[in-house]
């Protein structure tokens, strides 16, 4: 009861003031038969040390001592201590959505800065004040694209994050929209021939990811040309936005969306994260989610307000651009602080470290007999390797070394047997990379690889089960 500020005496005085005998009287509108007769069966109450003990035990059972090369839409980057220090200010984290602008200028100005940073990073004109995460941002971007096109046809690259595609499917299932999957080619990039063929069937909205799920960077400029040439609309999703510090942004796209977790937000077993959505200026009234705009007060001073609110559900109700009510303000604030700390040079240097370490690891692994690079396309900090028939044994051996060696692509792509997706960020130490490579050598030397398998892909649906 340490969170409750009323004393027993005060409770009694308040009841007297409202003319009630007991607190039970206040609950009389709830019929007696619907009220609980006994206490809920819940653990607690616990003191603070007991709570921490409970969660410390859970934390210890969550492998804090493992080195991980998992990425796939959630990336481990170092978080400068200033990020949490500032997020912990109660004025930020205990505030509500900034509807009362005069006493929410802190959140509003920070969101305006976030919008600016996302627009600069993506090469777009405007960005919103964030969405739930990358998967919902991609989904909202497609819904937005369909509104702009007035269309009913979506082309989705098979190399878009499988869980983003699953979320999109959930949202589109009752929308009378035709979805066509565009495969990837041997390079790991979008199959442009297939794309062109599909574009002949009429204007469509394309969702493509870069770097895509298998790590390949997409030729977004060329793709945009093809789609827009066919009067379609291009959405580029970015799940690892740090790539944008060294890779040309998809400025030709119509909408750029993605996941900004990499910027100062903890991996935290999947969330909370922070989605972003940026677009060309002409589409601003179709943008879902909150937007912060600059304006003046009655004295002419600069200030910020939530704006273009008529797009939103509290006004438009069933005609709203989206049912989204909240953004991910605090995570967006984390990203803003993170990007301010790293800055123009720091972010680029950081991205180049990721590039260097990932390429070092990819080269060293590909040099191990029995291992090959899976795709030929350029990549940023994540790549796929192929190790015929040995993937399970390799990952198990790495597990013994307390290394989570990556993600088996077969989990989402049945045709990609023997493939491992490996992410290497700046947090990976060379000694651990070398240890991973030695383990590969040891396992594969002890058991030489069989004759080369045919890499024939087997078409298949997309199971979620493991």
């Amino acid at each position, binding site marked *: 009861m340490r969170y409750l500020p009323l004393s027993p005496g005060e409770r009694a005085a308040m009841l007297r003031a409202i003319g009630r005998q007991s607190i039970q009287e206040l609950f009389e509108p709830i019929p007696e038969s619907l009220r609980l007769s006994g206490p809920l069966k819940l653990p607690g109450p616990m003191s603070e040390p007991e709570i921490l003990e409970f969660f410390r035990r859970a934390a210890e059972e969550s492998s804090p001592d493992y080195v991980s090369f998992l990425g796939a839409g959630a990336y481990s980057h170092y978080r400068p201590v200033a990020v949490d220090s500032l997020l912990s200010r109660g004025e930020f984290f205990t505030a509500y959505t900034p509807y009362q602008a005069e006493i929410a200028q802190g959140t509003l100005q920070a969101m305006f800065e976030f919008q600016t940073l996302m627009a600069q990073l993506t090469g777009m004109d405007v960005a919103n004040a964030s969405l739930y995460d990358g998967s919902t941002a991609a989904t909202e971007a497609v819904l937005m694209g369909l509104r702009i096109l007035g269309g009913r046809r979506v082309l989705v690259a098979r190399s878009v994050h499988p869980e983003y595609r699953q979320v999109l499917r959930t949202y589109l299932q009752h929308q009378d929209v035709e979805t066509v999957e565009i495969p990837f080619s041997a390079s790991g990039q979008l199959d442009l021939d297939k794309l062109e063929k599909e574009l002949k069937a009429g204007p469509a909205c394309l969702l493509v990811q870069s770097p895509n799920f298998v790590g390949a960077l997409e030729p977004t400029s060329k793709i945009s040309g093809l789609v827009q040439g066919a009067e379609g609309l291009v959405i580029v999703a970015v799940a690892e936005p740090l790539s944008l510090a060294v890779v040309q942004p998809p400025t030709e796209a119509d909408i750029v969306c993605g996941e900004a977790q990499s910027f100062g937000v903890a991996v935290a077993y999947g969330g909370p994260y922070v989605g972003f959505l940026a677009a060309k200026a002409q589409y601003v*009234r179709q943008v879902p989610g909150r937007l912060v705009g600059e304006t003046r007060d009655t004295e002419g001073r600069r200030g910020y307000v939530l704006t273009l*609110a*008529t797009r939103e559900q509290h*006004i*438009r109700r069933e005609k709203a651009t989206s049912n989204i009510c909240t953004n991910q303000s605090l995570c967006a604030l984390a990203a803003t602080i993170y990007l301010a700390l790293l800055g123009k040079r720091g972010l680029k240097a950081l991205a180049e470290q990721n590039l260097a370490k990932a390429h070092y690891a990819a080269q060293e692994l590909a040099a191990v007999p029995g291992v090959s690079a899976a795709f030929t396309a350029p990549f940023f900090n994540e790549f796929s390797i192929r190790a015929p028939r040995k993937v399970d044994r390799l990952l198990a051996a790495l597990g013994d070394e307390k290394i989570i060696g990556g993600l088996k692509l077969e989990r989402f792509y049945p045709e990609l047997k023997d493939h491992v997706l490996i992410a290497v960020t700046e947090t990976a130490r060379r000694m651990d990379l070398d240890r991973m490579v030695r383990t590969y050598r040891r396992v594969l030397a002890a058991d030489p690889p069989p004759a080369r398998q045919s890499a024939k892909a087997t078409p298949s649906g997309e199971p979620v089960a493991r």
Partner: protein
Amino acid sequence: MVPVELQYTKDHEWIRVDQSTGTIGITDHAQNELGDIVFVELPKAGDHVSAKESLGSVESVKAVSDIYSPVSGEVLAVNAKLQDKPELINTDPYGDGWLVRVSLSDPHEVETLMSSEEYAAYVQDKAAH
């Protein structure tokens, strides 16, 4: 302020009929209720509109309101000035703040609309409730 030469709808649109052409806008009462207009969404010339169906919307900071067409017909012109100056609807709802001009496909539809006296009484009656 309810000009006598116009016809009105219960949704607070007005229409000025000139032979087979009608100019449509929203009433002074409507713009007053909405407050400062910040954006207008209108059909394109050549689009077909139907009586009592939405032909677009007007937005203030805190509200969005559908505009229901008083008549059916083809859109001949839209007021392009509103894109940059939506406030014209506030300052001159019956003049420079007009929305669209349509060719009437069924002139009889106009007969079902309210006269200025009827509309004025309707607004007064609503305010009393």
